[in-house]
């Protein structure tokens, strides 16, 4: 549009001289292919993008929106043919993760509707464009298209310039009608404007705004977010995603980043920006990922003792307290792993065993301290493991990290191994959180480990402890700065909570070593023991005595009716064996219906045996392991008797036995603990593992293996512990498993890739 004529230019110059700093901008719609249509409307909006706010107020009333409109038209005329829109079509990656560069709703609605994420890009050549890097990881891209004048051109990402927050794309064919930008550096004279294509939610519109000082840019030594003075000065609050033009609309500079080191020149032409080719950047990212996952990140298994249940709390029997947890540990130094799990004091007190899975080796770990202010604790490896490397821990100048490129590692646990995804990103901000913890935020959400572009650790994901809240509130995970972590480690014992330790004298769960059934009125009548049992309201009749248990040693027998248990030192109240308090499930396990259960309900099938995690055992534990108690009971001949016995700690039970989840086959195996062995009448010498769960859709499920079947042997080798199983399947390939369901056995074939 040739709108210029001398009359207008005079007025323009007149008004421009009155302008010192801008508080008014004008926008005009751009009708481009892929863009949206709307009427042009000058809008008076005050933006804080140009820094000098005090000046803005004074000049506001001197400013004529009309000037901005005119400048906008000049800019459009000069540059509209150099600016395109780029469509990024997103997809979910092979692992089923969503792109992380924006919140899930944004991303999911684009993928669901098949719509692209759009951004403006600037032409450097007829087939080369540069745009702001919003950190879309290539594995989430299904295709990229450049849109110009109603035409689409397929394009590819060729390189990145992380320091400039830019990404370069190249179209397969030159774009018709495109005018590559020609840059003229700052002259030091005249006015400059920032010119950009903005999405206001409905349309893409052209915006022009004044650009601060004629000389160019603001020099600042400190941002309001920094905690200390940064080591190197930098420019802050720069306008992003903009073309900086002079009064004639000629491009002077292109900028995508909020902050720039003062050693860099703002008006360095984009073709001179340092570029890292896309494959190289991806490769270095993958190298970092591989290194970290193989050498520094390990699955940590935590076994807990069974908790005692508070008898005064109304227990929901569906909630089972945690007796087993798996997490990911980060190897820091000196054989110390950081496990970023927030364990409460009572949970840590119950901590029984820590096992670190280093490759195929299960290394025992020692608890080394839980942080007072953060939700994490340290584990020391008790053995020297070859081939592991701690992450490099160095102090960083956090304020200078702002807007600098980083690599984020998102972790997932895959059976016994750590699985991770890498995302390029940048530090958005640095701040002091609660308890003055130094933390960083990124342009991506989610719990991740942050590394700088040289592969050094910068943040770890930790929760900050809040002792006011109950455990139900999910506190957010923060990216805690490595500086903070170093101070915690250096402080040694001072940073730990002395009350958050595994308990040596922990009152472990007790057991008596019996199976019982509750008394009924009829039974009390039949046995003529009505007066002893409160007409059938109290009394637990022993139905089985486990060999080697305290009940056997106390000569209790099947048929004896327990009436009450009294601590001999009188420290706690006696325990009445009230029938309503100790219900027992008397139903049969439907073995013949097992084949009909759909696989998605596998983890809902209750165990065929009655669990040892029951109220009777927890009441017994409340009396205290090691305590001597008097058991009052009726023997088989209905004679009232008493016996003294010491409450013993329970041996391993199914719920807290070591579990092994084999991701390759989909089987979760546990050793057969005493109550399981009794249920299956498994003799002492026989080796077998109980299949605790089968993952739906896994090779084991397809082969017809169901939960609570037993694994007898693999390729002829009997397996009795998860370690033996692991060794037997280490080779992978074709496995012949001997599976037993109660009486019936069969050979099942699994194909495992290794």
């Amino acid at each position, binding site marked *: 549009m040739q709108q210029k004529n001398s009359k207008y230019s005079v007025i323009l110059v007149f008004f421009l001289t009155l302008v010192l700093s801008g508080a008014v901008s004008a926008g005009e719609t751009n009708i481009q292919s892929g863009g949206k249509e709307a009427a042009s409307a000058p809008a008076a909006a005050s933006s804080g993008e140009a820094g000098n706010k005090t000046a803005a107020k004074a000049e506001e009333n001197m400013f004529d929106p009309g000037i901005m409109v005119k400048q906008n038209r000049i800019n459009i005329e000069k540059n509209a043919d150099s600016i395109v829109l780029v469509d990024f079509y997103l997809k979910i990656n092979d692992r089923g993760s969503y792109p992380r560069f924006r919140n899930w709703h944004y991303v999911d609605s684009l993928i669901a509707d098949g719509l692209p994420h759009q951004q403006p890009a600037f032409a450097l050549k007829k087939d080369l464009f540069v745009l702001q890097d919003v950190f879309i990881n290539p594995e989430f891209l299904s295709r990229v298209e450049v849109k110009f004048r109603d035409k689409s051109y397929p394009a590819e990402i060729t390189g990145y310039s992380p320091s400039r927050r830019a990404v370069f794309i190249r179209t397969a064919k030159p774009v018709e009608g495109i005018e590559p930008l020609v840059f003229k550096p700052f002259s030091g004279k005249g006015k400059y404007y920032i010119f950009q294509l903005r999405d206001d939610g409905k349309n893409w519109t052209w915006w022009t705004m004044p650009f601060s000082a004629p000389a160019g840019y603001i020099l600042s030594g400190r941002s309001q977010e920094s905690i200390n003075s940064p080591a190197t000065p930098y420019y802050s609050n720069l306008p992003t995603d903009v073309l900086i033009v002079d009064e004639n609309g000629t491009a002077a500079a292109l900028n995508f980043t909020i902050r720039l080191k003062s050693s860099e020149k703002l008006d360095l032409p984009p073709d001179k920006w340092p570029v890292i080719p896309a494959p190289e950047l991806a490769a270095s990212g993958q190298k970092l990922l591989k290194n970290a996952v193989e050498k520094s990140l390990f699955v940590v298994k935590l076994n807990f003792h069974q908790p005692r249940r508070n008898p005064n709390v109304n227990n929901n029997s569906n909630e089972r307290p945690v007796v087993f947890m798996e997490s990911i540990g980060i190897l820091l130094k000196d054989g110390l792993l950081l496990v970023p799990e927030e364990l409460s004091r009572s949970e840590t007190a119950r901590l029984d065993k820590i096992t670190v899975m280093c490759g195929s080796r299960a290394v025992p770990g020692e608890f080394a301290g839980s942080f007072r202010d953060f939700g994490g604790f340290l584990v020391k490896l008790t053995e020297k493991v070859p081939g592991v490397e701690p992450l490099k821990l160095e102090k960083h100048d956090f304020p200078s990290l702002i807007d600098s490129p980083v690599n984020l590692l998102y972790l997932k646990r895959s059976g016994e191994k750590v699985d991770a995804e890498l995302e390029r990103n940048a530090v958005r901000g640095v701040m002091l959180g609660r308890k003055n913890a130094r933390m960083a935020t990124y342009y991506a959400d989610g719990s991740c480990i942050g590394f700088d572009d040289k592969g050094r650790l910068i943040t770890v994901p930790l929760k900050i402890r809040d002792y006011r809240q109950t455990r139900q509130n999910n506190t957010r995970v923060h990216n805690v700065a490595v500086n903070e972590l170093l101070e915690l480690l250096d402080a040694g014992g001072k940073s730990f909570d002395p009350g958050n330790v595994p308990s040596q004298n922990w009152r472990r769960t007790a057991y008596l070593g019996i*199976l019982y059934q509750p008394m009924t009125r009829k039974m009390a009548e039949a046995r003529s023991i009505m007066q002893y049992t409160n007409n059938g309201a109290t009394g637990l009749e022993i139905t089985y005595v486990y060999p080697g248990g305290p009940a056997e040693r106390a000569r209790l027998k099947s048929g004896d009716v327990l009436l009450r248990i009294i601590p001999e030192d009188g420290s706690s109240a006696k325990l009445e064996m009230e029938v309503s308090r100790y219900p027992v499930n008397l139903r049969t396990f439907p073995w013949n219906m097992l084949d009909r259960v759909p696989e998605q309900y596998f983890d809902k099938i209750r165990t065929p045996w009655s669990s040892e995690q029951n109220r009777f055992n927890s009441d017994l534990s409340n009396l205290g392991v090691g305590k001597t108690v008097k058991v009052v009971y009726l023997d088989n001949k209905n004679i009232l008797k008493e016996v003294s016995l010491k409450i013993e700690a329970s041996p391993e039970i199914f719920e807290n036995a070591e579990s092994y989840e084999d991701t390759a086959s989909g089987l979760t195996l546990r050793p057969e603990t005493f109550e399981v062995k009794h249920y299956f009448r498994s003799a002492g010498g026989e080796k077998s593992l109980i299949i605790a769960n089968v993952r739906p859709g896994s090779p084991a499920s397809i082969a017809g293996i169901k939960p609570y079947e037993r694994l007898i042997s693999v390729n002829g080798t009997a397996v009795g512990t998860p370690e033996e199983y692991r060794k037997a399947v280490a080779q992978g390939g074709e496995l012949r498993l001997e599976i037993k369901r109660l009486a019936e056995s069969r050979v099942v074939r699994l194909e495992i890739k290794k």
Partner: protein
Amino acid sequence: MKIYFAILALLVSAVSLFTGCAGVDDVGFENTVQQAKDKVFPAVVYIRVLRENKESGKDISGTVSGSGVLISPDGEIVTNWHVVDKAINIRCLLSDGRHYEAELIGSDKDIDLALIKLKTAGTPGLKAPEFPFADFASIPAKEGDFVMAMGAPWGLSRSVTIGIISSANRYLEREGNYSLWYQTDAAIFPGNSGGPLVNTRGEIVGINTLGVITGGMGFSIPSPTVELLVGRFREYRQANWAWVGLELQPLHDFNRNIYFDGDSGVIIAGVEPGSPAETAGIKARDRLMAVNGTAVTAMTEEDIPAVNRMLGLLEFGRKADLTVKRGNEMLNIALTPVAKGKVEGESLALKKWGITVKAINRFADPNLYYYCPEGVFVLGADQGNTVVRHDGLQVGDIILEAGKHKIRTLADMKKAYDELAAASSRDRLVIVKVMRNGVELRTVLDFSDVNNQ
């Protein structure tokens, strides 16, 4: 001219006459069917059985009817086991109206076959009656052969349905798999169960046994199997299968998606505990190569029944030589099969208590046998019984003790019941110890209403 037309007309009409009866073959086929039917119909027998039914807790009798076929002039009839099972009284009605009672010669649950014989001991001096009978086919049937399923569903009149052999090697997943089946689309329904499947030559090719409710598919026991078993019934009064305790799996098990190398042998999937195979030292995953020198192979599941049959026909008590491959080694293992014996325990109705109990049998109740090799379990409970209350005693419970009596066998149970249920018994509440789901429990039976009956 007209003459030519006349001759032409004559010729044309003559041709049309011939084409009109284009069923030269049709008529022939119809005749064949009629002949075959006429040959066998007289041998088809209507069987009516009074059987004891103890399952629902009461000792009631019911009537079951089915069909059978005479196979010898002196009145031997072949029918299904499920027709004459637990029979108190068997009566047969022949096609010519004569009626006789029959006695059970032998039966086998695994094959579902039975041999009964008409009781013709009548007035001495009179000549023994002769009966029409049918022969077994000399050549086994094959797919596509026309067959007729005959039976006597409701009495005097016989019925015949026609179809073809849909499959001559049908494998059905059942316990006791000693034979394959003929599948046919000739309608087989409860009425003609036990009746013969007849080919176009009027010979018996099978005994109709199973039908599908929707129709279109029925299964018959092939005649070679029937002949084998009839011989054994005559000799031993039962099939007299030997038992070795091997669970077999074919080399190419498509259903379980597991394939083994090689083209000979049969895979041993499991060895039953306490069996001769376990005693002989055979292990799961071994490959059975030969029995007494005869090579055995099961490539697909259709081959499994033949191997089972070979093992089932071994003489018990006599050492059999099994060649077994374990890994890369060939082993010779001596195994002494035992008699399979009963495949089902006997039952006993405890009338006053309203329950029926049955002896545990390792073949019929493997999951109960696992926990209690010798015992008695609750088979059924009467709906209106007053003794067994909610959760007191459940179907499937193994009764271990009743009052002071320890229960191991059905005789023990009878003795305990007789004592406890006697009108003179003063025990109103009896404590019973049962095993349920592998767990021992005690429950109380309340006889207060019962002993007065």
